[in-house]
């Protein structure tokens, strides 16, 4: 197997035994990038020179025989929504096409300190607004499994890079499913931790109360290894949680015997592609055969999730994106502008893409005087009800299983004309952002060669359970069973 196709845990083992060098792994990854990137377009920026330097440094640490973190020497790709000092950070937008941050995001700082090798900044839907990575000012990313299809979004570049061997690990962000959906569509593992588990400092905000940074890898174990590094309380993020930090790899092998696994009935209704449903039910059976107790549960307010999500997310976005005004950094319109108001208008009209402008307008409307109660406040009430649903259901079960997406990876352009269709792709993922709960996608086979993702949902700060079930499923060989 080529080095670039191996799992991070395998490579870490090989590095430790000095069977391979970080430089060799990094070169293998860049070789793959050279072969595939023209088609896939997983990256907005690659950082080959610094990567090779970092690989050299990592190798030196091995040579010196010092104890090194597991991540030392492992290639990693970072979604272009996380600030990297001195490296252009675009958020997939024209408005930040020339933006070079003066500081590095906490999560990125942590992986770099652990010795990971930064390969580049991955493509994404502009400001993470989208489910297909087609809304990028730097062109769409294609799904390496089938290049006519989208990789899902918005962390499509990160998922495609992992899937296609253009990196070993990747960091993504998830506001409404943006790690889980592309992980499902590209057939890789991806986890959105509990809100507050990973510091958001340096994550360019889309919707602050929903955004969370997470890990993508070839296996659940790879995700656990990366999550170990990026999680933890950060004094620079007031919403970062002060909770104890377990070793997420330690409990991976506890198995699933006797676990109570909930199946929310509202997630298997009209609108789901039956081929996806069949695939998920097969996985459920596999879990049941291996000792899990499958329990029917109800989350009655599920039907409000998409509306609540799109009101809250766009409301917060309308405010978060106000800072892109052409005054301090980023793009400023070149037109001859008579006053500052015109400068704002032209800069923002030219700088933002269509979907971003649509969401800014939706959110501005939802917060306006006279509409606030009917939209924003009502959405917050729905959010509270959805959270109650989960709290109640979790009194009965240890985790839940659902599909990640109601449909298979669609073709490029297929849903671009109909935003509402596109929004519905997130129907099974947004609830976890509204509630802050952790969830991951693991591959559960393919339909017509297209990957299907199984979503595992856990209690707040119980990523251990989510990862344990994901790992067990992979070990059973669930997707081939």
């Amino acid at each position: 197997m080529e080095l670039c196709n191996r799992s991070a845990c395998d490579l870490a083992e090989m590095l430790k035994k000095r069977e391979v060098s970080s430089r060799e792994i990094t070169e293998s990854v860049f070789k793959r990038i050279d072969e595939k990137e023209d088609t896939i377009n997983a990256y907005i920026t690659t950082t080959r020179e610094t990567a090779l330097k970092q690989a050299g440094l990592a190798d030196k640490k091995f040579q010196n025989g010092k104890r090194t973190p597991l991540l030392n020497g492992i290639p990693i790709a970072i979604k272009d929504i996380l600030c990297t000092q001195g490296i252009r950070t675009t958020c997939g937008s024209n408005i930040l096409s020339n933006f070079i941050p003066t500081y590095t995001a906490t999560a990125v700082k942590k992986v770099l300190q652990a010795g990971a090798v930064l390969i580049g900044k991955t493509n994404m839907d502009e400001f993470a607004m989208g489910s297909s990575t087609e809304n990028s000012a730097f062109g769409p990313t294609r799904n390496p499994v089938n290049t006519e299809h989208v990789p899902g979004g918005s962390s499509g570049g990160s998922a495609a890079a992992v899937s296609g061997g253009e990196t070993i690990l990747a960091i993504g962000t998830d506001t409404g499913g943006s790690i889980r959906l592309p992980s499902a569509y590209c057939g890789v593992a991806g986890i959105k931790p509990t809100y507050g588990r990973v510091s958001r400092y340096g994550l360019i905000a889309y919707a602050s109360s929903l955004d969370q940074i997470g890990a993508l890898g070839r296996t659940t174990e790879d995700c656990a290894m990366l999550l170990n590094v990026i999680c933890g309380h950060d004094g620079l993020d007031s919403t970062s949680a002060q909770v104890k930090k377990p070793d997420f790899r330690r409990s991976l092998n506890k198995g699933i015997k006797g676990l109570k696994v909930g199946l929310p009935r509202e997630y298997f209704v009209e609108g789901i592609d039956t081929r996806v449903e069949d695939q998920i039910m097969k996985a459920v059976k596999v879990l049941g055969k291996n000792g899990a107790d499958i329990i029917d549960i109800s989350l009655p307010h599920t039907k409000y999730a998409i509306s609540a999500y799109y009101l809250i997310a766009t409301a917060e976005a309308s405010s978060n994106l106000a800072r892109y005004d052409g005054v301090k950094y980023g793009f400023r319109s070149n037109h001859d502008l008579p006053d500052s108001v015109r400068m704002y208008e032209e800069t923002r009209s030219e700088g933002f893409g269509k979907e971003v402008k649509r969401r800014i307008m939706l959110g501005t409307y939802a917060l306006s005087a006279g509409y606030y109660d009917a939209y924003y406040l009502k959405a917050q009430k729905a959010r509270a009800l959805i959270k109650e649903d989960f709290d109640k259901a979790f009194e009965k079960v240890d985790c839940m299983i659902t599909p990640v997406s109601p449909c298979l990876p669609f073709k490029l352009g297929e849903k671009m004309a109909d935003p509402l269709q596109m929004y519905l792709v997130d129907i099974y993922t947004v609830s976890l952002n509204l509630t802050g709960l952790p969830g991951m996608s693991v591959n559960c086979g393919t339909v017509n060669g297209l990957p299907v993702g199984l979503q595992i949902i856990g209690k707040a700060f119980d990523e251990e359970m989510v990862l344990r079930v994901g790992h067990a499923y992979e070990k059973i060989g669930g997707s081939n069973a």
Partner: protein
Amino acid sequence: MEYDIIICFETHVELKTETKLFCDCLVRYEAPPNSQICPVCTGQPGALPVLNKKAVEYAVRAGLALNCTINRESRFARKNYFYPDLPKGYQISQFERPFCEDGYLEITGDDGKPYVVGIKRIHLEEDAGKLVHSSGSLEASEYSLVDYNRSSVPLLEIVADHERNPLRSIKEARTYLEKLKQILKYIEISDCMLEKGQFRCDVNISIRPKGSKSLGNRAEIKNMSSFRFITEALEYEIKRQSELIESGRRVPQETRLFDEEKKITRPMRSKEDAPDYRYFPDPDLIEVEIDQEFLQGIEDSVPELPDQKLDHLIKNFGIPRHDAIILTREKKVSDFFEKCALHCNDRRRLSHWITKDLFKLLNDSSLTIEECQIRPKDFSQLINLTDRGDITDSIGRTVLYEMFRTGKNPETIIEAKGLKPIQDVDLLDKILDEVIGENPDAVSKIKQGITKPIDFLVGQVMKKTRGKAPAKKVRELVQKKLVK
């Protein structure tokens, strides 16, 4: 026609915390432009605010001093609007559940009676940056520069109540502002220097024919930074609004700006054009909980306020009211007084020396009491020396001047300048004998039982010793010698 005047202030006060409201940058007014900035206070993508606890403490302290209810659970909200000095495109402020609500400030009304002015709310927010225009205004300039040093400096907004005892005259307005400023300085949360923009006011004013019940439309005059301008703007508004009413027209509800040169106000925007700030809770900041322990700590840290202190000085120390008012005008002064009082027997004498002699020196050199080098302990020693008659008041003043100039203690100065009182009784006796010999008239009067010339003789001894004779002692000697 006679009118009721209704005035009400929204006051912005910059807090004197070490660091800004949401980052570690220092609050420095004199620093070069954009030298006190970071990703947070310049609104860089991905940067997040972290609340400065000290600022919350200050806000709550203000709330307690202004008799407010303190909300145990409070939160920050975003006020959304575009302006080049506002780096995030929103200001982090408070909307629902500010830190303090429903307070009051007691002033002396124009009728000489106490008047309790309602305070609706006090909330904490961040200041914006500062625009430097190439000419005049943003609109008129070819370019404008932005200095973000002030961006995110903590600002306290104190909103008075329209309905609960608003101010009834320009004079009361002035009294209110003076008192508010005095209290905020007393509790040491702001220096309130108007010329530095640390105390800025929006003022609402409406008028109605005397006796009328209905409230008239009000004009809001924005961002005034001097008491004189506020007075002038209010004078202009009363005239403008009464003319409108008398000519049968309506006063429109609007926001106006004061033209400092022409001394008039001009319309800025009407009520209909009022911006929609789309307030909503800031998701980057969690709810602030003020627990009993934190609140208790702040309650304990609120010093005696000027009114209480005034009472205390008059009742317990016997300070004349006039002096007591001067001593309590500023906390630094009353602190100085109280520190001295610990070592002083005669507090009236002490207050007299502070309000007359020390203040004269301070005024002449335009220094504040904090800048003065005299230590309270030394000052009280000086007072005790004069009190005991060890040195005369006149020598005392000479010593005070030296203390003020050098910061040395009175004994060192007396020693060095040779101002030490003559303790040698034989020497004093000898000098007194000379004086007696030179003034037979006075001596014979004293011997006849007229006491007045005693002072004269003591004075003569003083003259001969250039003030160095202890007056008390000399008086004793005169009495011993001449009064049987």
